[in-house]
């Protein structure tokens, strides 16, 4: 038997990564923790506040309302983007020129920066000069995203669907492409109808990529800031003030560093928790075979 050698120098090999992670994530996060347990005054005077800010935030209706809006937003966009993405993927040409064409066209929205997407829709929806807003107005439909809550919500949801459905569609398409022809041939021999082909062949084979798509879309939409901020600025009133918009208002608008820090940490934990629950449930479903 060979003696196991001890060589503590190996630690130096992981040091660069540790330093990188420390400066990019751990230390910034710790400053947030630092703010969240203290009251900050001018001249950098700090006073210990303990869990006071957390308690205050938890009893603050403002945060709960923002959370509620946020959950509603993520729920609605997932409910639209996932089925729509699958539908698009199922109807895309499977090969040839038009298949590549669809792929490129569908990737375009994914390449546009967030604030540009916001600006596009902000202008598109304007009643005075925007193509969409003007047309709706001309048709006699009461649409105004700066004054009407429903209009504002429809605008940011349609914008998100426009921006991100392609991602779900592309992932679903990749899942579909990996299904060997023999499966479809066997289904024809077994006289399975279109719905059964989808339910028993396509959906199970797409489950893996769909899981990733849903998780990505959930996390991203839960943290969304730029696009709705550019379009509605959180309004009218607080109607479209989602969690991150509210957080920025609190931290940078009002400069309430303590409560905002406590808010951030809870925000972070909620995303982590929901993603974990989601992932665990999906993986278990997958193991059991739906």
């Amino acid at each position, binding site marked *: 038997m060979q003696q196991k050698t001890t060589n503590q120098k190996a630690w130096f090999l992981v040091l660069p990564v540790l330093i990188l992670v420390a400066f990019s994530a751990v230390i910034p996060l710790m400053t947030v923790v630092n703010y969240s347990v203290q009251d900050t005054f001018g001249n950098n005077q700090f006073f210990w506040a303990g869990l006071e800010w957390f308690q205050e935030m938890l009893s603050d209706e403002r945060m709960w309302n923002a959370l509620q809006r946020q959950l509603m937003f993520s729920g609605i966009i997932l409910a639209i983007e996932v089925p729509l993405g699958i539908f698009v993927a199922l109807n895309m040409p499977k090969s040839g020129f038009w298949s590549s064409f669809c792929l490129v066209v569908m990737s375009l929205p994914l390449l546009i920066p967030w604030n540009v997407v916001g600006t596009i829709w902000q202008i598109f929806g304007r009643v005075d000069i925007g193509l969409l807003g003007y047309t709706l107005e001309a048709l006699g439909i009461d649409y105004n995203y700066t004054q009407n809550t429903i209009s504002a919500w429809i605008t940011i949801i349609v914008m998100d669907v426009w921006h991100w459905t392609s991602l779900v569609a592309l992932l679903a398409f990749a899942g579909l492409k990996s299904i*060997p022809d*023999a*499966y479809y*041939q*066997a289904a*024809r*021999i*077994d*006289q*399975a*109808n279109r719905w*059964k082909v989808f339910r*028993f*062949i396509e959906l*199970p*084979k797409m489950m893996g990529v769909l899981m990733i798509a849903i998780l990505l879309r959930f996390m991203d939409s839960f943290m969304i800031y730029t696009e709705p901020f550019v379009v509605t600025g959180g309004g009218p009133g607080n109607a479209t003030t989602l969690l991150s918009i509210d957080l920025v208002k609190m931290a940078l608008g009002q400069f309430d560093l303590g409560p905002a820090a406590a808010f951030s940490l809870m925000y972070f934990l909620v995303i982590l928790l929901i993603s974990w629950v989601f992932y665990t449930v999906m993986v278990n479903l997958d193991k*059991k*075979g*739906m």
Partner: protein
Amino acid sequence: MARITLDNLAHSYNPNPGSEADFALKELNYDWEDGEAYALLGSSGCGKSTLLNIISGLLMPSQGRILFDGKDVTHAPTAERNIAQVFQFPVVYDTMTVHDNLAFPLRNRGRDESYVAERVQEIARMIGMEDMLRKKARGLGADAKQKISLGRGMVRKDVNALLFDEPLTVIDPHMKWELRTQLKKLHHDFGHTMIYVTHDQTEALTFADKVVVMYDGRVVQIGTPEELFERPAHTFVGYFIGSPGMNVIPAKVVGTTAYINGSEVALGAGYGALDGKVEIGVRPEFARLTEGEGLPVKVRRVEDAGRHKIIRAEFFGQDINIIAGEDDPVRVDMNRVTFDAAKVNVYANDWRVTPESGEAA
């Protein structure tokens, strides 16, 4: 069950086929008799699977007709043809239990549940999976999955034909024998018309009543295993069937004698004038290593295959194989070879020539 007629059938994957080379399946006329077990044998890419997919309706032929019991089904969809097909790689519905997998084709045809349950039990017993019916199909091994595919193919009693597209490729060797035996038994018990595609000659010869040998998109011979062995219609059949394959030797044939490099070899029958490339074909089983008598050979290597020996030798600058029995002596001074005259076939341009007189009875 049905008799399947192929009438002038051909297929090209090219929408505008020009020359004959564009055809993956060259023109073919044949009747598949009701209730027979056929094997479709050939190397990869010779058109076996194309032919199978045309019969099952997964592919529309570019030319010709297919008839089931005299009824034209060329343009009928797969579902109407009532065919069962098993593919090379196991296709199972992962999210269903084994039971639901087997029941799937019956349920899709609206059979009532009591009949379905009874049939599934029967099939499960046949493929030896009775104790796994409640399990999800996902996570089973490749051979269990392929057994489910076979089962799904057999669960319908009224199918016109059962088609198998190299179904045992992914199965372990010891399971292969078992499944093949079960298939044979199934054929014996129920008398389905079966067409079994394979590139494995053992599989083809042990499974089928009749073997259809394909080469380069063409059916080169249809016959019983014995016919394929004794009278290969094409040098490819001779080469492809048998282990090692038939020796094909260039020769000149006059009457009942063949001349190889001027040396005489007796033939079992007389032949007329032959055009083109003339060769004689002798199976290694019908060649014998001797001393003194016959034509000169140079033995290169002797392989002991257990029940027989394979002798690899050089014969007028060309390789030749000879099979000797387990107890036949092979000595250094044995440097001649003789052929069993009755078993020598003559080929012109790769096709077997029917003798003019005195075919060995």
